[in-house]
């Protein structure tokens, strides 16, 4: 396996990219996704693999400077096994070749020569200019280095103006073992970048979409807002505190001395390679005007109910109706499973009006493992959500 060089993505792919695979990183125009291919390049170089990098849009010096800036590390052409075909080579090929066929032959000859002389393991190619020069199938054949008997691992970045139509086309589907699309969206957040594993030939996983940020030269899967809501006394503050490394709750003492949340809970955790921020809402109906503000831009919601308190279920049903209008993944956490008189999962589903498609977990918010199981399920739902 070759690492993608990115947190979390190797896990999603079952350990990385099998050697000899052909990978497409498809970039939506304007989306800051260049670090995907660069991360994989660094991972390959650090593993000692020999890499041929085809950069028809730029020069070697400019490329090395740019990737150094992006990643915060430098590539030394003396220490690493790396060779290039760059924009200067493209100009020479164009000058020498009288027509497209001759240029194609020249590219092929150069790729084969460099690959053989340097015992190349992985070919990295920036595709959109090659695509423009030679068309889809010839361009792909060129970068695949398929004239030799050796099966290289091929990693291609493409500026995709044609969108999903291009990715769904037969030549693309036939040519790649992994298609990873990097896009941006304005919903549910105002503006965020995400990647989607469109297809992986070695994995039967469904298509997964994951928001990401770039942090210290790394792609970090990112869930900026998960909201925990539910009726009063259902254990929301405890849930947030159990889930997170840093948790704050804005509470005050109630009439009988019990603590109740009057603004919100807030917590942050780095878990399963995701940066996640949790927001807990107050449960009392008098705070309902705050709910839309806290729920706004949430990527997923945990609805927590007290599994021992039937009187709260009408309130939970009301909250569930509010959440379902947001069209984001939701999980039900039935808390206090360890206390006597708890209801069954079926009873809770029926009373709240939850269909079979929404998971219900019987948990104790005091148990970190239970809380993590709910979060794991929600993160899984978020990554399968089609933005």
């Amino acid at each position: 396996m070759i690492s993608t060089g990115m947190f979390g993505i190797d896990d999603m792919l079952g350990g990385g990219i099998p050697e000899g695979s052909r990978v497409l990183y498809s970039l939506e125009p304007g989306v800051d996704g260049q670090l995907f291919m660069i991360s994989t390049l660094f991972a390959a170089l650090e593993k000692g693999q020999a890499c041929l990098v085809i950069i028809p849009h730029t020069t070697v010096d400019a490329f090395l400077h740019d990737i150094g800036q992006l990643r915060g590390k430098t590539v030394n052409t003396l220490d690493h096994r790396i060779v290039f075909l760059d924009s200067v080579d493209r100009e020479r090929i164009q000058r020498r070749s009288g027509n497209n066929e001759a240029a194609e032959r020249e590219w092929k000859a150069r790729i084969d020569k460099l690959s053989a002389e340097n015992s190349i393991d992985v070919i990295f190619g920036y595709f959109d200019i090659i695509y423009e020069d030679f068309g889809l199938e010839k361009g792909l054949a060129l970068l695949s280095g398929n004239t030799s008997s050796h099966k290289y691992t091929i990693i291609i970045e493409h500026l995709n103006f044609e969108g999903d139509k291009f990715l769904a086309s037969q030549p693309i589907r036939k040519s790649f073992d992994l298609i990873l699309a990097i896009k941006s969206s304005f919903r549910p957040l105002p503006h965020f970048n995400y990647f989607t594993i469109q297809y992986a030939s070695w994995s039967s996983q469904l298509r997964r979409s994951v928001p990401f940020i770039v942090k210290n030269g790394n792609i970090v899967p990112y869930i900026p807002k998960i909201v925990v809501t539910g009726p009063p006394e259902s254990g929301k503050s405890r849930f947030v505190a159990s889930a997170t490394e840093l948790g704050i709750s804005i509470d005050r003492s109630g009439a009988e001395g019990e603590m109740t949340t009057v603004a919100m809970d807030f917590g942050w955790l780095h878990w399963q390679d995701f940066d996640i921020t949790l927001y807990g809402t107050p449960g009392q109906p008098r705070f309902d005007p705050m709910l839309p503000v806290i729920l706004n831009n949430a990527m997923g919601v945990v609805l927590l109910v007290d599994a021992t308190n039937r009187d709260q279920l009408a309130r939970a049903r009301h909250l569930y109706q509010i959440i379902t209008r947001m069209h984001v993944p939701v999980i039900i956490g039935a808390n206090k499973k360890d206390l006597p008189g708890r209801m069954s999962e079926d009873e809770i589903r029926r009373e709240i009006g939850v269909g079979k498609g929404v998971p219900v977990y019987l948990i104790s918010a005091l148990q970190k493992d239970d809380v993590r199981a709910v979060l794991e399920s929600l993160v899984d739902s978020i990554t399968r959500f089609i933005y």
Partner: protein
Amino acid sequence: MYSYKTGISQIDHATGGFDAGTNVLILAPSLSYAEQFSYAITRPLPGEYAIMLSTNERASEVIDQFKASGADKHFVGVIDAITKSSTPAVSDTERFMFVTNPTDLTGIGIKFSQMVETIFDGTFSGKDNGLFPPPIRFCINSVSTLLMYRKLEVLYQFLHVMTAKLKKIEGLGIYILNSESFDEKTVSLIKQLMTIVIEIKVDGADNYFRIVGMRGVDAGWQKFTVNKGQVVQAS
């Protein structure tokens, strides 16, 4: 809706300026003051920002031009597609970003997004923008150069993305195209993406412009010069 003042009296008086989300093609022959004309309508007014994608001049030269027209350089960003080919180690700053050459449409798109993001989040100028995203004028100088590096159909797709983005962020897009260097098909394809076309012509020693596609604005030829960053209409 925000209106971008142009300094061209017949536009500003008739409509209050270009509507937010307008994309304007400046179609002009060589040596016709088209560049100065474009700088004049790209120049940011107080509270606005400008981004210039330069395929012909270095970032420092672009800034000099804006300064000469009286613009505050702190509100001008440049995506420079020239300097990096000779100085590969030049690094991006908030206001100056570099791509190796005009071929690199991936880089241009990303730098544009990054610059807009820093304008919106206030880190570009260090000034609080208030409640709403600030108005942004964006100019490509020039589409003609981009067409020398990339095929028409690819550039059409690229400009389609850029014009759509400008609409989404309620900016003003200005695109310079040499009217003499390209065939009718090319010009008409690029025109399809635009809201308004400003044509410029040279007659003897005089320069003229006319505005096509703007309701309520006189579409006749107007003699002009550019003085200190302002379009001056002569009688």
